[in-house]
Protein backbone atom coordinates (compact mmCIF):
# COMPACT_ATOMS: atom_id res chain seq x y z
CA UNK A 1 0.00 0.00 0.00
CA UNK A 2 2.78 2.41 1.02
CA UNK A 3 4.77 1.28 -1.98
CA UNK A 4 1.85 2.14 -4.28
CA UNK A 5 1.54 5.59 -2.73
CA UNK A 6 5.28 6.22 -3.17
CA UNK A 7 5.06 5.20 -6.82
CA UNK A 8 2.13 7.59 -7.27
CA UNK A 9 3.97 10.49 -5.61
CA UNK A 10 7.03 9.76 -7.66
CA UNK A 11 4.89 9.61 -10.82
CA UNK A 12 3.29 12.96 -10.00
CA UNK A 13 6.69 14.60 -9.42
CA UNK A 14 8.00 13.19 -12.68
CA UNK A 15 4.83 14.31 -14.48
CA UNK A 16 5.18 17.85 -13.13
CA UNK A 17 8.81 17.95 -14.27
CA UNK A 18 7.98 16.72 -17.75
CA UNK A 19 4.79 18.74 -18.23
CA UNK A 20 5.86 22.06 -16.68
CA UNK A 21 9.58 22.34 -15.95
CA UNK A 22 11.06 20.95 -19.18
CA UNK A 23 8.91 23.02 -21.58
CA UNK A 24 9.56 26.12 -19.47
CA UNK A 25 13.35 25.61 -19.58
CA UNK A 26 13.18 25.06 -23.35
CA UNK A 27 10.97 28.09 -23.90
CA UNK A 28 13.29 30.30 -21.79
CA UNK A 29 16.32 29.05 -23.70
CA UNK A 30 14.63 29.92 -27.01
CA UNK A 31 13.80 33.37 -25.61
CA UNK A 32 17.46 33.85 -24.67
CA UNK A 33 18.52 32.90 -28.19
CA UNK A 34 16.06 35.36 -29.70
CA UNK A 35 17.27 38.12 -27.36
CA UNK A 36 20.90 37.25 -28.16
CA UNK A 37 20.25 37.50 -31.91
CA UNK A 38 18.32 40.74 -31.49
CA UNK A 39 21.07 42.34 -29.42
CA UNK A 40 23.75 41.11 -31.81
CA UNK A 41 21.94 42.58 -34.83
CA UNK A 42 21.37 45.86 -33.04
CA UNK A 43 24.97 46.07 -31.79
CA UNK A 44 26.34 45.40 -35.27
CA UNK A 45 24.03 48.03 -36.74
CA UNK A 46 25.01 50.55 -34.06
CA UNK A 47 28.76 50.07 -34.58
CA UNK A 48 28.33 50.04 -38.36
CA UNK A 49 26.42 53.33 -38.24
CA UNK A 50 29.15 54.96 -36.15
CA UNK A 51 31.98 53.64 -38.33
CA UNK A 52 30.27 54.75 -41.53
CA UNK A 53 29.28 58.21 -40.26
CA UNK A 54 32.30 58.97 -38.06
CA UNK A 55 30.22 60.29 -35.18
CA UNK A 56 28.35 59.28 -32.02
CA UNK A 57 25.37 61.36 -31.00
CA UNK A 58 22.59 61.28 -28.44
CA UNK A 59 20.04 59.85 -30.92
CA UNK A 60 22.25 56.83 -31.69
CA UNK A 61 22.78 56.06 -28.00
CA UNK A 62 19.06 56.49 -27.24
CA UNK A 63 18.06 54.15 -30.06
CA UNK A 64 20.44 51.48 -28.80
CA UNK A 65 19.20 51.88 -25.21
CA UNK A 66 15.58 51.64 -26.35
CA UNK A 67 16.16 48.35 -28.16
CA UNK A 68 18.10 46.96 -25.20
CA UNK A 69 15.25 47.92 -22.86
CA UNK A 70 12.68 46.04 -24.94
CA UNK A 71 14.44 42.77 -24.10
CA UNK A 72 13.59 43.27 -20.41
CA UNK A 73 17.19 42.86 -19.24
CA UNK A 74 19.81 45.31 -18.07
CA UNK A 75 23.12 45.60 -19.87
CA UNK A 76 26.56 47.05 -19.47
CA UNK A 77 27.59 48.96 -22.60
CA UNK A 78 31.27 49.64 -23.22
CA UNK A 79 32.33 52.02 -25.97
CA UNK A 80 35.96 52.11 -27.06
CA UNK A 81 37.50 54.58 -29.47
CA UNK A 82 41.15 54.02 -30.42
CA UNK A 83 42.39 57.28 -31.92
CA UNK A 84 45.16 56.91 -34.45
CA UNK A 85 48.18 59.03 -33.57
CA UNK A 86 51.62 59.50 -35.11
CA UNK A 87 54.96 60.01 -33.43
CA UNK A 88 58.22 60.82 -35.12
CA UNK A 89 61.46 59.29 -33.99
CA UNK A 90 64.66 60.04 -35.89
CA UNK A 91 62.85 60.48 -39.16
CA UNK A 92 60.65 57.39 -38.73
CA UNK A 93 56.95 57.95 -38.31
CA UNK A 94 55.34 55.49 -35.94
CA UNK A 95 51.66 54.83 -35.43
CA UNK A 96 50.17 54.44 -31.99
CA UNK A 97 46.66 54.61 -30.55
CA UNK A 98 45.08 56.68 -27.78
CA UNK A 99 42.12 54.96 -26.17
CA UNK A 100 38.96 56.90 -25.26
CA UNK A 101 36.34 54.95 -23.37
CA UNK A 102 32.64 54.93 -22.43
CA UNK A 103 32.58 57.56 -19.67
CA UNK A 104 34.46 60.13 -21.70
CA UNK A 105 32.44 59.49 -24.89
CA UNK A 106 29.07 59.65 -23.13
CA UNK A 107 30.09 62.76 -21.20
CA UNK A 108 31.22 64.41 -24.43
CA UNK A 109 27.90 63.55 -26.14
CA UNK A 110 25.94 65.00 -23.23
CA UNK A 111 28.02 68.21 -23.12
CA UNK A 112 28.78 68.83 -26.79
CA UNK A 113 26.08 66.86 -28.62
CA UNK A 114 28.27 64.93 -31.05
CA UNK A 115 31.44 62.94 -30.51
CA UNK A 116 33.50 62.73 -33.72
CA UNK A 117 35.92 60.11 -34.96
CA UNK A 118 38.56 60.14 -37.67
CA UNK A 119 38.83 57.83 -40.64
CA UNK A 120 41.39 55.13 -39.78
CA UNK A 121 40.57 55.11 -36.03
CA UNK A 122 39.10 51.98 -34.46
CA UNK A 123 35.74 51.90 -32.73
CA UNK A 124 34.27 49.02 -30.72
CA UNK A 125 31.14 48.44 -28.70
CA UNK A 126 30.83 45.65 -26.14
CA UNK A 127 27.53 44.64 -24.58
CA UNK A 128 26.96 42.15 -21.77
CA UNK A 129 23.89 41.44 -19.70
CA UNK A 130 24.14 42.41 -16.04
CA UNK A 131 20.75 41.04 -14.96
CA UNK A 132 20.09 37.35 -15.30
CA UNK A 133 18.10 36.07 -18.26
CA UNK A 134 14.98 34.02 -17.54
CA UNK A 135 16.72 30.79 -18.41
CA UNK A 136 19.70 31.70 -16.19
CA UNK A 137 17.34 32.46 -13.28
CA UNK A 138 15.38 29.25 -13.81
CA UNK A 139 18.53 27.15 -14.02
CA UNK A 140 19.79 28.81 -10.81
CA UNK A 141 16.55 27.88 -9.05
CA UNK A 142 16.96 24.29 -10.20
CA UNK A 143 20.61 24.34 -9.15
CA UNK A 144 21.99 23.83 -12.65
CA UNK A 145 23.15 27.43 -13.07
CA UNK A 146 26.38 26.66 -14.85
CA UNK A 147 29.45 28.88 -14.87
CA UNK A 148 28.46 31.68 -17.21
CA UNK A 149 27.83 35.05 -15.59
CA UNK A 150 26.79 36.72 -18.84
CA UNK A 151 24.67 34.74 -21.23
CA UNK A 152 24.89 37.61 -23.68
CA UNK A 153 28.28 39.08 -24.55
CA UNK A 154 28.65 40.76 -27.91
CA UNK A 155 31.55 42.66 -29.40
CA UNK A 156 31.22 44.61 -32.62
CA UNK A 157 33.34 47.19 -34.41
CA UNK A 158 36.44 47.79 -36.45
CA UNK A 159 38.06 50.53 -38.46
CA UNK A 160 36.24 53.87 -38.87
CA UNK A 161 35.59 54.27 -42.58
CA UNK A 162 34.49 57.87 -42.69
CA UNK A 163 35.23 60.72 -40.35
CA UNK A 164 36.96 64.06 -40.12
CA UNK A 165 37.40 64.51 -36.41
Amino acid at each position, binding site marked *: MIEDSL*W*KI*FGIILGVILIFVVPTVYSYQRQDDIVYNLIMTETNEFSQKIRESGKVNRQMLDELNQVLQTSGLTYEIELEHQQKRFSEDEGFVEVY*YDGVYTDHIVEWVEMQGTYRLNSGDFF*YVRIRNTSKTKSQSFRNILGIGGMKNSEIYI*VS*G*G*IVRYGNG
Partner: protein
Amino acid sequence: MGMVKYSIIGLIIMLPFFIQSTIQNTQYKYKERQRAWIEQSIEEASYDASFALKTYSTYAYDSQQAYNIQIPHREVIRNFFDSLKFRGFRFSLEDFPLIAFVEYDGIVLYNPQEDELSQKNFYTVRNANNCEYYTLSDEMMVFSYETGRYERRRVSPEQRNSKVTQSIELALNTYQDKYHQEQNVGFLLPEFEGSSSELVFDDVGVIIFYDPKGYAYLDGLESYKIVPSGIMKMDLPIDL
Protein backbone atom coordinates in the same frame (compact mmCIF):
# COMPACT_ATOMS: atom_id res chain seq x y z
CA MET B 1 -0.90 0.35 -10.54
CA GLY B 2 1.30 -1.81 -12.74
CA MET B 3 0.78 0.60 -15.65
CA VAL B 4 1.95 3.55 -13.54
CA LYS B 5 5.06 1.67 -12.46
CA TYR B 6 6.00 0.66 -15.96
CA SER B 7 5.38 4.20 -17.28
CA ILE B 8 7.62 5.65 -14.58
CA ILE B 9 10.34 3.08 -15.19
CA GLY B 10 10.10 3.84 -18.93
CA LEU B 11 10.46 7.54 -18.26
CA ILE B 12 13.43 6.98 -15.97
CA ILE B 13 15.11 4.96 -18.72
CA MET B 14 14.45 7.77 -21.20
CA LEU B 15 15.69 10.50 -18.86
CA PRO B 16 19.48 10.06 -19.42
CA PHE B 17 18.96 10.23 -23.20
CA PHE B 18 16.91 13.36 -22.82
CA ILE B 19 19.53 15.00 -20.54
CA GLN B 20 22.33 13.99 -22.91
CA SER B 21 20.50 15.48 -25.90
CA THR B 22 19.88 18.72 -23.98
CA ILE B 23 23.55 18.99 -23.01
CA GLN B 24 24.63 18.28 -26.60
CA ASN B 25 22.26 20.94 -27.94
CA THR B 26 23.62 23.50 -25.50
CA GLN B 27 27.22 22.62 -26.33
CA TYR B 28 26.42 22.86 -30.04
CA LYS B 29 24.84 26.29 -29.53
CA TYR B 30 27.92 27.68 -27.75
CA LYS B 31 30.22 26.08 -30.31
CA GLU B 32 28.29 27.72 -33.13
CA ARG B 33 28.43 31.06 -31.33
CA GLN B 34 32.17 30.69 -30.93
CA ARG B 35 32.62 29.74 -34.56
CA ALA B 36 30.54 32.77 -35.60
CA TRP B 37 32.73 34.94 -33.36
CA ILE B 38 35.94 33.62 -34.92
CA GLU B 39 34.59 33.96 -38.47
CA GLN B 40 33.22 37.44 -37.82
CA SER B 41 36.45 38.64 -36.16
CA ILE B 42 38.62 37.46 -39.05
CA GLU B 43 36.18 38.75 -41.64
CA GLU B 44 35.95 42.20 -40.04
CA ALA B 45 39.74 42.38 -39.68
CA SER B 46 40.13 41.35 -43.34
CA TYR B 47 37.73 44.08 -44.43
CA ASP B 48 39.60 46.56 -42.24
CA ALA B 49 42.83 45.50 -43.98
CA SER B 50 41.26 45.99 -47.40
CA PHE B 51 39.92 49.37 -46.30
CA ALA B 52 43.45 50.37 -45.26
CA LEU B 53 44.72 49.11 -48.61
CA LYS B 54 42.25 51.27 -50.50
CA THR B 55 42.69 54.32 -48.29
CA TYR B 56 46.46 54.44 -47.90
CA SER B 57 47.56 53.23 -51.35
CA THR B 58 48.98 55.88 -53.62
CA TYR B 59 49.24 56.20 -57.36
CA ALA B 60 52.63 56.80 -58.86
CA TYR B 61 54.17 57.19 -62.26
CA ASP B 62 57.49 55.87 -63.39
CA SER B 63 58.94 55.52 -66.85
CA GLN B 64 59.17 51.72 -66.56
CA GLN B 65 55.75 50.77 -65.36
CA ALA B 66 53.80 53.93 -66.26
CA TYR B 67 50.97 54.42 -63.75
CA ASN B 68 51.00 52.01 -60.87
CA ILE B 69 49.47 51.58 -57.47
CA GLN B 70 51.86 51.63 -54.54
CA ILE B 71 50.50 49.53 -51.72
CA PRO B 72 51.61 50.23 -48.15
CA HIS B 73 51.91 46.55 -47.23
CA ARG B 74 53.05 47.16 -43.66
CA GLU B 75 50.17 49.55 -42.97
CA VAL B 76 47.64 47.03 -44.27
CA ILE B 77 49.16 44.24 -42.16
CA ARG B 78 49.27 46.45 -39.08
CA ASN B 79 45.61 47.38 -39.51
CA PHE B 80 44.65 43.72 -39.82
CA PHE B 81 46.36 42.67 -36.60
CA ASP B 82 45.30 45.84 -34.73
CA SER B 83 41.70 45.14 -35.65
CA LEU B 84 41.92 41.65 -34.14
CA LYS B 85 43.77 42.92 -31.08
CA PHE B 86 41.31 45.72 -30.25
CA ARG B 87 38.40 43.36 -30.74
CA GLY B 88 39.84 41.14 -28.01
CA PHE B 89 40.41 38.21 -30.34
CA ARG B 90 43.11 35.93 -28.96
CA PHE B 91 45.53 34.82 -31.62
CA SER B 92 49.16 34.01 -32.27
CA LEU B 93 51.09 34.69 -35.46
CA GLU B 94 51.14 30.94 -36.14
CA ASP B 95 47.37 31.15 -36.69
CA PHE B 96 48.02 33.30 -39.78
CA PRO B 97 50.70 31.56 -41.86
CA LEU B 98 50.35 33.84 -44.89
CA ILE B 99 48.91 37.12 -46.09
CA ALA B 100 48.90 37.63 -49.86
CA PHE B 101 48.47 40.93 -51.68
CA VAL B 102 46.77 40.62 -55.05
CA GLU B 103 48.25 43.62 -56.81
CA TYR B 104 47.57 45.12 -60.22
CA ASP B 105 50.37 43.23 -61.97
CA GLY B 106 51.52 40.58 -59.49
CA ILE B 107 51.19 38.98 -56.10
CA VAL B 108 53.24 39.79 -53.00
CA LEU B 109 53.39 37.32 -50.12
CA TYR B 110 53.89 38.19 -46.47
CA ASN B 111 55.04 35.74 -43.83
CA PRO B 112 53.82 37.07 -40.43
CA GLN B 113 56.09 34.79 -38.40
CA GLU B 114 59.28 36.01 -40.06
CA ASP B 115 57.87 39.48 -40.75
CA GLU B 116 59.05 39.12 -44.33
CA LEU B 117 57.61 40.44 -47.59
CA SER B 118 58.42 38.51 -50.75
CA GLN B 119 59.43 39.94 -54.11
CA LYS B 120 56.50 40.51 -56.42
CA ASN B 121 55.54 37.44 -58.51
CA PHE B 122 54.26 38.96 -61.74
CA TYR B 123 51.30 37.46 -63.56
CA THR B 124 53.38 36.01 -66.37
CA VAL B 125 53.16 33.12 -68.80
CA ARG B 126 56.45 32.10 -70.47
CA ASN B 127 56.16 30.66 -73.97
CA ALA B 128 58.85 29.49 -76.38
CA ASN B 129 59.04 32.80 -78.29
CA ASN B 130 57.56 35.33 -75.92
CA CYS B 131 56.50 36.15 -72.40
CA GLU B 132 52.96 37.32 -71.61
CA TYR B 133 52.45 39.83 -68.80
CA TYR B 134 48.90 40.00 -67.50
CA THR B 135 47.36 42.65 -65.28
CA LEU B 136 43.97 42.99 -63.62
CA SER B 137 42.86 45.18 -66.54
CA ASP B 138 41.73 43.96 -69.95
CA GLU B 139 45.14 44.61 -71.47
CA MET B 140 48.22 42.43 -71.50
CA MET B 141 51.79 42.97 -72.68
CA VAL B 142 53.63 40.47 -74.83
CA PHE B 143 57.42 40.60 -74.74
CA SER B 144 59.03 39.05 -77.79
CA TYR B 145 62.43 37.41 -77.13
CA GLU B 146 63.33 37.77 -80.82
CA THR B 147 62.69 41.49 -81.31
CA GLY B 148 63.03 42.56 -77.68
CA ARG B 149 59.84 44.62 -78.00
CA TYR B 150 56.66 44.90 -75.99
CA GLU B 151 53.28 44.74 -77.63
CA ARG B 152 49.94 45.61 -75.99
CA ARG B 153 47.03 43.27 -76.61
CA ARG B 154 43.48 43.11 -75.38
CA VAL B 155 42.40 40.00 -73.49
CA SER B 156 38.99 38.66 -72.65
CA PRO B 157 38.04 38.74 -68.95
CA GLU B 158 37.86 34.92 -68.96
CA GLN B 159 41.40 34.53 -70.28
CA ARG B 160 42.72 37.17 -67.87
CA ASN B 161 40.99 35.54 -64.87
CA SER B 162 42.30 32.16 -65.81
CA LYS B 163 45.93 33.32 -66.26
CA VAL B 164 45.93 35.54 -63.17
CA THR B 165 44.42 32.75 -61.06
CA GLN B 166 47.03 30.31 -62.38
CA SER B 167 49.85 32.73 -61.52
CA ILE B 168 48.48 33.28 -58.02
CA GLU B 169 48.07 29.57 -57.42
CA LEU B 170 51.57 28.91 -58.69
CA ALA B 171 53.03 31.49 -56.29
CA LEU B 172 50.99 30.10 -53.41
CA ASN B 173 51.91 26.50 -54.17
CA THR B 174 55.61 27.37 -54.32
CA TYR B 175 55.27 29.12 -50.98
CA GLN B 176 53.33 26.22 -49.52
CA ASP B 177 55.98 23.69 -50.53
CA LYS B 178 58.64 25.78 -48.80
CA TYR B 179 56.45 26.36 -45.77
CA HIS B 180 55.56 22.69 -45.58
CA GLN B 181 59.23 21.69 -45.54
CA GLU B 182 60.11 24.24 -42.85
CA GLN B 183 57.12 23.87 -40.56
CA ASN B 184 56.08 20.36 -41.50
CA VAL B 185 52.54 21.63 -41.95
CA GLY B 186 50.60 22.91 -44.91
CA PHE B 187 47.50 25.02 -45.38
CA LEU B 188 44.53 24.77 -47.68
CA LEU B 189 44.68 26.77 -50.86
CA PRO B 190 41.65 27.74 -52.92
CA GLU B 191 42.45 25.20 -55.63
CA PHE B 192 42.31 22.32 -53.15
CA GLU B 193 38.76 23.22 -52.29
CA GLY B 194 37.74 22.87 -55.92
CA SER B 195 36.68 26.47 -56.16
CA SER B 196 39.54 27.91 -58.25
CA SER B 197 37.41 28.02 -61.39
CA GLU B 198 34.90 30.21 -59.59
CA LEU B 199 37.48 32.70 -58.35
CA VAL B 200 37.52 36.03 -60.09
CA PHE B 201 40.53 38.17 -59.39
CA ASP B 202 39.60 41.48 -60.94
CA ASP B 203 40.56 43.85 -58.17
CA VAL B 204 43.52 44.76 -55.99
CA GLY B 205 42.97 43.10 -52.63
CA VAL B 206 44.23 40.82 -49.89
CA ILE B 207 43.98 37.10 -49.18
CA ILE B 208 44.22 36.24 -45.52
CA PHE B 209 45.07 32.62 -44.81
CA TYR B 210 44.42 31.31 -41.34
CA ASP B 211 45.13 27.99 -39.80
CA PRO B 212 41.99 26.28 -38.50
CA LYS B 213 44.20 23.89 -36.47
CA GLY B 214 44.26 26.45 -33.67
CA TYR B 215 40.48 26.11 -33.52
CA ALA B 216 40.50 22.38 -34.18
CA TYR B 217 37.37 21.72 -32.19
CA LEU B 218 35.44 23.81 -34.71
CA ASP B 219 34.66 21.80 -37.80
CA GLY B 220 34.24 23.34 -41.20
CA LEU B 221 36.10 26.58 -40.53
CA GLU B 222 37.30 27.98 -43.85
CA SER B 223 41.01 28.64 -44.12
CA TYR B 224 41.18 31.83 -46.15
CA LYS B 225 39.37 35.07 -46.92
CA ILE B 226 39.72 36.91 -50.21
CA VAL B 227 38.80 40.56 -49.87
CA PRO B 228 38.89 42.96 -52.83
CA SER B 229 39.60 46.56 -51.88
CA GLY B 230 37.52 48.24 -54.57
CA ILE B 231 40.52 50.15 -55.98
CA MET B 232 39.83 49.02 -59.55
CA LYS B 233 36.21 50.06 -59.20
CA MET B 234 37.11 53.62 -58.21
CA ASP B 235 36.42 56.40 -60.65
CA LEU B 236 40.01 57.37 -61.25
CA PRO B 237 41.30 60.14 -63.43
CA ILE B 238 43.88 57.77 -64.91
CA ASP B 239 43.33 54.73 -67.04
CA LEU B 240 44.72 51.73 -65.24
